[in-house]
């Protein structure tokens, strides 16, 4: 895409960097930590995405089969990317990522179905942005399906502004630093 993306003038936040611990609306203790590539967190994420409801896919991600999930995770868990994971004990409940794209980062967030509507998404995105802010990320963008009102409302609350409304998907942008 050759079109220039517009960002808000002022930075959003500030956001707290992980580790963050809280109790969700179902009274589960959730801990959000920066992704650690050395332990078994990779396999826990594969399990989360294998369990992911296909109805919650957006624009082709997460992919459907384990083989494709692994190759997609290899891309977004690369050391250039910023990743945070929400843990319920040793089960991955949610995952949020910033993937570099020229001078900015593309954001995506996923919460496993049984952990949705419990306030985890808001904490997860704030923790990811806190991690981004601490890592000197300046600009973040995302796309969201326009019928997904809950997600659009969350992104607006966080400080995202619509940067392009002309395609199938709504594009939103935020400044971090």
């Amino acid at each position, binding site marked *: *895409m*050759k*079109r220039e993306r517009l960002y808000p003038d002022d930075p959003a936040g500030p956001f707290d960097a992980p580790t963050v611990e809280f109790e969700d609306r179902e009274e589960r203790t959730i801990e959000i930590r920066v992704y650690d590539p050395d332990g078994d967190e990779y396999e826990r994420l594969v399990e989360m995405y294998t369990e992911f409801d296909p109805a919650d896919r*957006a*624009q*082709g*991600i997460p*992919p459907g089969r384990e083989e494709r999930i692994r190759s*997609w995770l290899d*891309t*977004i868990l690369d050391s250039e990317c910023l990743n945070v994971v929400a843990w319920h004990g040793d089960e991955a409940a949610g995952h949020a*990522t910033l*993937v*570099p*794209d020229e001078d900015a980062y*593309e954001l*995506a967030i996923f919460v496993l179905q049984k952990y949705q509507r419990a306030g985890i998404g808001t904490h997860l995105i704030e923790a990811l942005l806190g991690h981004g802010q601490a890592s000197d990320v300046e600009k973040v963008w995302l*796309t969201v399906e326009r019928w997904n009102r809950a997600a659009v409302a969350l992104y607006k609350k966080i400080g995202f502004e619509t940067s392009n409304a*002309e*395609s*199938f*998907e709504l594009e939103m942008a935020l400044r971090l630093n």
Partner: protein
Amino acid sequence: MKVLLGIGGSEDSYHALERTVERAAVADDELTVAIVENPNSDATPEEIETRVRNQLEAANVDADVRHVEGDPGSSLVDLAESGGFDQLVLGGGQRSPMGKISIGSIAEFVLLNSHKTVKLVR
């Protein structure tokens, strides 16, 4: 089958070219390639034509190659109807660094406005 392929120089449009030419060779399709001006692509019509001709030659497929001026989406829809095509083929979208697929503006217009069957190639 009488097939119209629209191509504007984006990566997904070259992928659609490859697959459509392969299919034409096997199915004996009557293929027309329409080169359009995609505002989101830097490729010139001449560069696109060279790649199209190379692909056709490599697969030993005969096709009518033409340049279409003006708005790409509406020109393709018009051509598909006036030319009596069975199917209009386009690239199936670009992937972001994250892996998200977005459908291009030409494909979006064609999908909503074409009275002919539309195929997006992945």
